[in-house]
C-alpha cells in the first residue's frame, strides 16, 4: 500500500463538454431488457463509432425497498429477506446479517456453528464464482463453460438442499448460530464434492486460460488501477485483481477465518483477464478453506444463548464481511425495540458498478459487455 492520497489519479468524473457537434457521436441505449446486462441494468452509452466516450447506468428496476421492509420486521423475521438481495450468494448475505445482529446482541455463535458457517459460505463463494464464470464466458461468446459450471454448481446446491431444504435463497443461518444440525454424512459429502470439484477448476481453466481468443478478448480490457479502485470504493476480486492484497477475511477476520490457512490471490494489471484469474484462484482457495474446516469440525452446540424475543440495547453497529462480490456491510441501528430502527446494507455490487464508467471509457462496445460481466453484479443487490 503506497501513498495513494497525494493525487486522485486521472479520474474525470464530470462529462467533458462536447466541443462541437460531431456527426459521428451517437447515444445508444442498452437494456434494461438486454441479454448481456445480467438482469435489468440499463446502460446509456455515448459512442464515437464503436468507441465508448462515456456511459451512464440507470438502475432501480428491481428496487424492492429491502431496507424499508427491515424497519417493519423483527430481527428474526428480517433474516430471510437479506437472501433475496444477492440471490446467487444468499448464504453470504445471511452470514453478514446474522453476525451484525450478534454484534448488537453481544453474543457469539459457538465454534461448531462458526465452522459450518464457513463451510457453507465458502461453498457459496464457489457457486457464485461459477455462475459468474459461466455467464461471463457466455457474454464473450464461449457457450460451453456455462454448462460445465452449472453442472458443478448443482452439486453445491444439492448440499444446500440437503442441509436446509432450499437451494437458492437458503436462509441457512440463524442469529446466534444455526437452526439445523448438519445431516448425517454432511462432512463426507462436502469432502466428496471437493474431490469432485478440484479437477473441474482445471477443466474450466483448460477451456479458457490459454485460449487465444479468450485472452485477446480479456487482456487489457476494462483496466482499472488500484488507485482508481480505492477512490471508487471498489472491493472484492476487482480490487484484488488490480494488485491490492486486501481481503476482509484476512484484514478484519470474522466468523473464525483467522483459524484457517489460505492466501489472497492478486493480479497485476487490473484487467478483465486478471479478474478472471483471481476468481479462479479464489475458488481454489475456497476449496482449501473448506477442506480445513471440514477436517476439523468441532463437536458442540450449534446455537448460542439468544433470547426468543430479541431486544438489543439502543445503539448502532456496522459490520462487514467479504462476500463473493466484495465488501458486504450491514449498518443496523437499534432503538431497543424488537425491530431494527434502521437497516442499511452496503451492497458490493452497487458500489462496484460505479466503476463501470471508468473501466469502459475508450473501450469498444463489445468490451462493455465483457466489463459488465467481469464486474460480477447482481441486480437484486444493486437495486435492493
Amino acid at each position, binding site marked *: 500500500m503506497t501513498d495513494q492520497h497525494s493525487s486522485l489519479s486521472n479520474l474525470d468524473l464530470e462529462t467533458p463538454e462536447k466541443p462541437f457537434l460531431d456527426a459521428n457521436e451517437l447515444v445508444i441505449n442498452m437494456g434494461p431488457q438486454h*441479454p448481456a446486462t445480467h438482469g435489468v441494468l440499463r446502460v446509456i452509452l455515448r459512442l464515437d463509432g464503436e468507441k465508448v466516450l462515456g456511459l451512464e447506468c440507470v438502475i432501480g428496476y428491481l428496487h424492492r425497498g429491502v431496507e424499508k421492509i427491515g424497519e417493519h420486521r423483527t430481527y428474526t423475521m428480517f433474516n430471510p429477506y437479506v437472501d433475496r438481495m444477492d440471490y446467487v450468494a444468499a448464504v453470504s448475505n445471511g452470514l453478514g446479517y446474522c453476525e451484525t445482529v450478534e454484534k448488537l446482541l453481544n453474543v457469539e455463535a459457538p465454534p461448531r456453528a462458526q465452522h459450518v458457517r464457513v463451510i457453507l459460505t465458502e461453498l457459496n463463494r464457489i457457486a457464485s464464482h461459477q455462475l459468474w464464470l459461466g455467464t461471463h464466458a457466455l457474454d464473450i*461468446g464461449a457457450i460451453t463453460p456455462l454448462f460445465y459450471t452449472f453442472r458443478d454448481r448443482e452439486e453445491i446446491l444439492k448440499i444446500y438442499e440437503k442441509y436446509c431444504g432450499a437451494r437458492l435463497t437458503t436462509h441457512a443461518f440463524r442469529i446466534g448460530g444455526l437452526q439445523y444440525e448438519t445431516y448425517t454424512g454432511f462432512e463426507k459429502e462436502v469432502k466428496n464434492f471437493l474431490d469432485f470439484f478440484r479437477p473441474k477448476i482445471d477443466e474450466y481453466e483448460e477451456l479458457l486460460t490459454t*485460449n487465444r481468443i479468450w485472452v485477446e*478478448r480479456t487482456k487489457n480490457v476494462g483496466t482499472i488501477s488500484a488507485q482508481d479502485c480505492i477512490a471508487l470504493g471498489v472491493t472484492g476480486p476487482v480490487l484484488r485483481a488490480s494488485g491490492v492484497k486486501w481481503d476482509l477475511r484476512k484484514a478484519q477476520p470474522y466468523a473464525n477465518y483467522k483459524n484457517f490457512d489460505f492466501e489472497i490471490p492478486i493480479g497485476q494489471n487490473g484487467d478483465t483477464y486478471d479478474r478472471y484469474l483471481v476468481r479462479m484462484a479464489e475458488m481454489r482457495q475456497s476449496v482449501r478453506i473448506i477442506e480445513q474446516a471440514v477436517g476439523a469440525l468441532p463437536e458442540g452446540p450449534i446455537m448460542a444463548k439468544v433470547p426468543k424475543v430479541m431486544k438489543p440495547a439502543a445503539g448502532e453497529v456496522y459490520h462487514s464481511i467479504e462476500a463473493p462480490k466484495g465488501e458486504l456491510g450491514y449498518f443496523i441501528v437499534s432503538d431497543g425495540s424488537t425491530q431494527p430502527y434502521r437497516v442499511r446494507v452496503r451492497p458490493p455490487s452497487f458500489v462496484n458498478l460505479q466503476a463501470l464508467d471508468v473501466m469502459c471509457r475508450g473501450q469498444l462496445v*463489445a468490451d462493455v459487455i465483457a466489463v459488465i460481466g467481469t464486474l460480477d453484479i447482481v441486480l437484486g443487490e444493486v437495486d435492493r
Partner: protein
Amino acid sequence: MGQILDYIKSYLSSSQTPGAAGNMFWVLVYILLVFAGLSVAVIAMNWLERKILAHMQVRLGPMRVGPHGLMQPIADAIKLLLKEDIMPAEADGLIFWVAPFVVVLAAFTTFVVVPFGPTHAITDMNIGILFMLGVSSLSVLGIVMAGWASNSHYPLIGALRSSAQMVSYEVAMGLAVVSAILMTSLNAEGTGTLSMIGIVQAQLAQGEWFIFKFFPLGLIAFFIFAVAMVAETNRAPFDLAEAESELTAGFHTEYSGFRWSLFFLAEYSAMIAVSSIAVTLWLGGWLRPFPNFLNNSTWDLVFSLFPGVTFLLFAAMCFYNALRMPKHPLFRVQTIGLAGFGVVLGLIGLVLFIPAVSVRIQDIFWFSAKVAGFMYLYIWYRGTFPRYRFDQLMRMGWKVLLPMGLGVLILTASVALLQQKLWHQ
C-alpha cells in the same frame, strides 16, 4: 416417346457432367437430386449440431421428439412454417420480402458447379471456382438488404458487421484459392484450370492432395482458407453479426417463421458450399484415400465397401441404442422407431454393397465424408471458442491472413516456377 427415351439414355454412356453434355433431362434430375440431398443434409446437420454440441456441453440435447430427438428438425420445420410471418411496420416491404430469397438463392446456386464425382455435378464450368466464390459473395447483398430493410438498429449494425467481415475475408480467401489454382498448372502443358472437376483431376494426375503439395505451402493456404471460410459463413468464433449478447440476433432479428428459416437454410447450405470448395481444392474432392498408391483391384474393392460399411455402422448404432432404451411400455414407440430407423439405414447400407451401385456412389460418399468432417469442425469451434471482437476480427483478416496469403502465393509461384524449369530441362 422412344426418342425421348433415347435422349434420356444417351447420357448414361457419357463421361461428362449432364450440363457439359447438354442433356437437359439429366440436368433437371441432378438439380433435384442435389437440392433434395442438400435439404436432407441441412436437416441432418441441424440435428447433429444440436446433439454434438449438447454432448460437448454435458447435456443431452433434443430427446423428446422421436427417439433421441431424431424428429426434432422436422418438428422445428413444421413449427417455423406454421408461425406467423411478421413484418415490422416501418420495414421496407419489398426488400424485406426479397432478402431471404436472395441469400438462399446465392447459397444454393453455388452447388451448380460442386463436383460430387467426375460426372456427378450439375455442370462443369470453365470458371467453376470463380463462379462459386462470386455467387457465394452475393449472399452479402441479401444480408445487407435484410438488415437495412428491417429498419431497426440491431439488424442494421449486424448487417454492416457481417458484410464488412465477409468482404474482408473474401480477399484472404481468394488469395488462398489462387495459390491452390496455381498448383493445377504444374503439368506438362503448364496451363491450369478454374474448373472444379479439373482441379480434382489435377490432384489425381499429380498424385497428391494440394494440402500436401509443396509442404507446408499447401497446408498454410488451406489453413488460411479454413479460417476465412468460418468467417465467411458468420459462424463461431466469427459470429459477431449474430452475437446474441450484443446484437440479439444480428441481421435476421426482425424475421420470423418461414423467412427466418430461409436464413437458417442459407447459413447451413453456405457452410456446406464453402466446405465443398475446401474439399475440392485441397482434400482431393471425390478421390478416395491413396488413389494412386493403393490402386490395384483389391484395394478398389476394399474402398468400395466403405459406403455400405458406414451405413451398417450407423444401423448398428441405432440397434444398440434401441436395446439400451428403457424397457417401459411408454418407450415402446420410441424403441420401435429407433429400430425402424436402423433397419432403413441398414437396408441403405446393404444396397450400397451392390457393385453397380457402389461404383456410382463411392465418389459421392468420399466427397460427403470429407465435407462432413468440416461440418464437425464447425460444431467443434462453436463449442470451444469465445467470440472475437470486431477490431480483432478485422486485424486478423487484414493483418494476419492477407499477408500470409500473399506470402504463400508468391512462394508457391516461385517454387512452381522452379519446378517448371527443372521439368523442361
